[in-house]
């Protein structure tokens, strides 16, 4: 049975039966312990108190409390079990519903708002879960309890019982009436909540439109209308709900009233014992509980029923094609496609009509035509994403709608114009289609992935991603030698080219293109304790600069920087461009201006002021920050402080550092890394070290940037070529594949997204490939690259159907089919169609 046709109770009756039976058993046991105290009550009054028997009193009281305690514990257990069962059933319901939803045809999703689906799958199902747990147990228990207590009461006095129970039939009439009203409001509430969800979803999806049109007020008004309506619906809903409770309570109060009246009268006239009266009263009160539970159950059942119906109704569409073929393996097609009078209409509108053509295996077809001519629709029909309204489509001689989704996905890959990129890494996205085939063990290996990346023109981008990433330590460690090798290539073989744009870290020298902080500390701390911003408060550092007499000079330098920057740029304002040559940041201008005002002409004495000026000095890069010059002699003193710091405070083997640096500079050779089993926190800028908190690029080029020039691009290409010769470039690419693309791939450019989609499709390697303007957002060069790929690599290996806009890309196709207003008006090779001088010819000349 289709999941959406199942009644609510189907889930209750067919899932987790043993557990439900257990629950039932526990309830029955607890029932006994709920009736037992009643009997005790009667005996306490009639026997113990009446007969003045203390022993019996104690006995019966003990039994009383014992039974009550047990009953409470069991009730606790029952509640827990109920919830567990309910949630377990819910798990099954959710998964199966999702399974169904995903397969619903595309037309469904065209009309359906994502907000509705989300709301249905999450919040609305939650509400049903609570009901499901007790769906069977509660009514059974309540009815049994009710009957038992009723029986007990009857055994005491049939007359009284009949009198007190007379109320209930009234309730059986009134309450359902109120309940129907409640249901109506409930349905409205659900509809309203869904609409709200949709509005939020729309606004968030199109947030850039909202911002660019400043339509905040408009959106808020839309939402406010629904919020308001929800408020009113809820108000009415709860008025009815509590109305029902009120009605119930009122009816209940009559009971004791009658009881006291009649029972008291009987007791006065000796026809009824006091004990029995007390017990009867108790029983009467107790009978209310199961009744109330039945009432609540009834309400909850209605509520859950309505919600359940509402959820299932929207998804009540049969999936068009089975997921898996029955009784056979999915076909492996050759790629023969035949269309016989194929047509597609939406209502009265004919999007395609009378398409008849035959595409042989490995033929490459271009679909061209005017906008709205039905090219994309045709592509979607062949991919079984839409179903033809007339005529038929045959794949390898088989009717397409007899094929399961598995048959199609094994044989056809479609690349759409706006591909969807999932949150995750580039690698995840590339492997998505292959993984979907369910074959997690036969994933393409790295070299296949990388060669495909190369073929679609993504290599440059992935390289750049890789270079800019800061891979985690575990990723780097196995490849450490390789990265150090790359470093030695740059400083050795390519030294001449790079010496002009990078100042390599060299322990012997003061580095003009590194900050003073880098010059002093000359290393990186994994814990961040030697980060520039933390240095003024770092005890070790403080001690160092005080002892070496640097503190005063650095503060003076900072003061000079602050004065000159503020003076020069105070009228310019916080324009970041102008702050590139000063260690001060644009948004700090005001603060420093205030600081200088406070100081006046005096020198800074407060620790806080000195620290802030110290920061400026530490950030200062002599080669870049032209705002001031490095004071005379400071470079030498910084250098000696560095050596002192490294050797005596950090315990670095400075001789080894000197030696390896000189050796690298002179011979281009790098000693292999000594393996440290314990993780040190401090890593100096020595050639044999890897800086785990820095990007791959920083680690390979290992120095300060002298300048950013257009030459840089060319030099990187040179470097990459050198790496490729050593088989090292692939390592960078591999790391680049771990780049996180962001939600919907928003950290990638449009062209990059499209290339990922194309690579993803090609990795899947199916006999038929359909491309719906798949290269539309690429630049001309990339489009040509992909076209050439199709023309050469895949010629004779795939049947290709490409919907194309740019007609200059069509000559290499075997056949061009020209569509207009849903019909084929011309077909033939490029040469034939040009000779014919028909519609295609016109189109080409217009472009």
């Amino acid at each position: 049975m289709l999941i959406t046709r199942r009644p609510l109770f189907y889930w209750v009756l067919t899932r987790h039966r043993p557990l439900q039976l257990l629950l039932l058993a526990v309830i029955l046991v607890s029932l006994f312990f709920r009736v037992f105290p009643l009997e005790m009550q009667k005996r306490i009054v009639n026997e113990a108190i009446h007969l003045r028997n203390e022993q019996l009193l104690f006995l019966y009281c003990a039994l009383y409390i014992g039974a009550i305690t047990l009953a409470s514990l069991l009730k606790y257990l029952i509640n827990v079990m109920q919830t567990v069962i309910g949630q377990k059933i819910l798990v099954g319901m959710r998964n199966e519903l999702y399974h169904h939803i995903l397969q619903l045809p595309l037309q469904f999703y065209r009309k359906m708002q994502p907000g509705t689906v989300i709301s249905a799958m999450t919040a609305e199902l939650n509400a049903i879960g609570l009901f499901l747990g007790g769906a069977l147990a509660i009514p059974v228990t309540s009815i049994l309890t009710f009957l038992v207590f009723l029986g007990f009461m009857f055994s005491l006095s049939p007359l009284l019982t009949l009198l007190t129970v007379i109320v209930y039939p009234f309730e059986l009439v009134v309450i359902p009436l109120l309940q129907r009203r409640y249901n109506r409001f409930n349905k409205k509430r659900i509809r309203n909540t869904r609409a709200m969800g949709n509005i939020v979803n729309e606004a968030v999806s199109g947030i850039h439109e909202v911002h660019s049109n400043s339509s905040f007020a408009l959106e808020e008004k839309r939402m406010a209308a629904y919020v308001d309506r929800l408020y009113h619906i809820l108000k009415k809903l709860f008025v009815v709900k509590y109305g029902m409770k009120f009605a119930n309570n009122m009816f209940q109060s009559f009971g004791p009233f009658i009881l006291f009246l009649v029972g008291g009268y009987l007791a006065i006239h000796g026809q009824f014992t006091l004990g029995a009266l007390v017990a009867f009263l108790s029983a009467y009160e107790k009978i209310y509980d199961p009744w109330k539970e039945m009432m609540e159950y009834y309400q909850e059942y209605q509520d859950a029923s309505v919600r359940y119906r509402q959820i299932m109704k929207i998804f009540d569409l049969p999936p068009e094609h089975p997921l898996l073929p029955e009784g056979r393996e999915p076909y492996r097609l050759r790629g023969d496609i035949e269309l016989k009078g194929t047509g597609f209409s939406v209502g009265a509108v004919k999007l395609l009509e009378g398409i008849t053509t035959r595409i042989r295996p490995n033929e490459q077809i271009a679909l061209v035509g005017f906008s709205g001519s039905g090219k994309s629709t045709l592509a979607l029909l062949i991919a079984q994403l839409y179903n033809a309204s007339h005529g038929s489509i045959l794949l390898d001689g088989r009717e397409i709608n007899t094929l399961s989704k598995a048959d199609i996905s094994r044989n056809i890959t479609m690349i759409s114009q706006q591909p969807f990129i999932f949150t995750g890494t580039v690698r995840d996205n590339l492997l998505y289609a292959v993984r979907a085939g369910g074959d997690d063990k036969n994933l393409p290996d790295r070299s296949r992935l990388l060669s495909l990346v190369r073929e679609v023109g993504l290599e440059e981008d992935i390289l750049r991603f890789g270079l800019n990433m800061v891979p985690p330590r575990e990723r780097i460690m196995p490849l450490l030698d390789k990265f150090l090798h790359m470093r030695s290539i740059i400083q050795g073989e390519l030294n001449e080219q790079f010496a002009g744009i990078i100042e390599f870290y060299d322990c012997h020298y003061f580095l003009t293109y590194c900050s003073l902080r880098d010059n002093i500390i000359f290393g990186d701390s994994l814990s961040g304790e030697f980060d520039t911003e933390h240095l003024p408060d770092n005890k070790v550092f403080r001690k160092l600069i005080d002892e070496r007499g640097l503190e005063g000079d650095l503060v003076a330098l900072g003061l000079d920087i602050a004065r000159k920057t503020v003076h020069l740029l105070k009228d310019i304002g916080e324009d970041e461009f102008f702050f590139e040559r000063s260690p001060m940041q644009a948004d700090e201008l005001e603060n420093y201006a205030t600081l200088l005002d406070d100081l006046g002409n005096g020198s800074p004495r407060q620790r806080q002021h000195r620290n802030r000026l110290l920061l400026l000095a530490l950030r200062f890069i002599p080669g870049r920050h032209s705002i001031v010059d490095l004071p005379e002699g400071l470079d030498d003193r910084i250098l000696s402080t560095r050596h002192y710091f490294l050797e005596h405070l950090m315990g670095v083997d400075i001789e080894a550092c000197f030696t390896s640096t000189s050796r690298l500079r002179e011979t281009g050779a790098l000693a292999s890394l000594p393996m440290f089993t314990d993780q040190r926190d401090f890593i100096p800028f020595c050639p044999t070290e890897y800086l785990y908190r820095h990007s791959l690029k920083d680690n390979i080029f290992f120095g300060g940037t002298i300048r950013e020039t257009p030459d840089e691009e060319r030099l990187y290409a040179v470097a990459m070529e050198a790496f490729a010769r050593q088989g090292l470039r692939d390592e960078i690419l591999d790391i680049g594949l771990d780049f996180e693309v962001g939600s919907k791939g928003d950290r990638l450019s449009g062209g990059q997204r499209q290339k990922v989609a194309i690579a993803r499709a090609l990795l899947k390697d199916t006999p038929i490939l359909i491309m719906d303007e798949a290269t539309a957002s690429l630049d001309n060069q990339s489009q040509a690259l992909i076209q050439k790929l199709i023309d050469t690599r895949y010629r004779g290996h795939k049947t290709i159907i490409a919907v194309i806009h740019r007609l200059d890309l069509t000559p290499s196709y075997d056949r061009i089919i020209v569509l207009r207003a849903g019909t084929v008006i011309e077909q033939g090779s490029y040469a034939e169609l040009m000779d014919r001088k028909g519609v295609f010819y016109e189109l080409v000349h217009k472009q």
Partner: protein
Amino acid sequence: MRNSWTEREYFMNSSTNSKHRNSGEGSSIDRKTAFLQQLPFFHETALETLRLYAYLASMEKFPAGEPIVVQGEPADRMYLLISGKVGICADHHGRQFHLQLLAPDGVSYFGELALLAEFDWFFSATALTDATVLTITREAFHRVMEKYPEQLPKTVSRIIKLHVELFVDQTHYLLDHLKEEAWRECGSEQ
């Protein structure tokens, strides 16, 4: 392949050799400002603006024989010659023709038009002797003009006048060096 010295080599040399860096002339902004003030181009510019340009300008050194700009590459900055001699050449039908000689005492700048528009260098400039130049990028120029928009019309007209001067100097130089037979007087157009 470019191999110009930059401020780094300047500093490096001075720290390992003699200390001719800070010879008491004040900070490098002051030095650059002083240099700019001497140029006729900047005669009417306010001191504050001048200091801003000095701050944004870069000083570069080119050893003898090094190309400074190469014909065909995108032009993005103006060059002011502080010291040394620079030769201007153009490629015509595959041959390099020498067009002009620049020296600090004469016309001592080129690329002034790059401040106003985007184009590719239509000539090459090479350091004939060791040369030091001061460069101002188009971007820096535009940013400063954004802050002082009232100065733009005057500045543009000054740049154009500079270009005229440069062009006139170039024409005279060429004519001086051409053989008389090659001259074509006006009125004898063929």
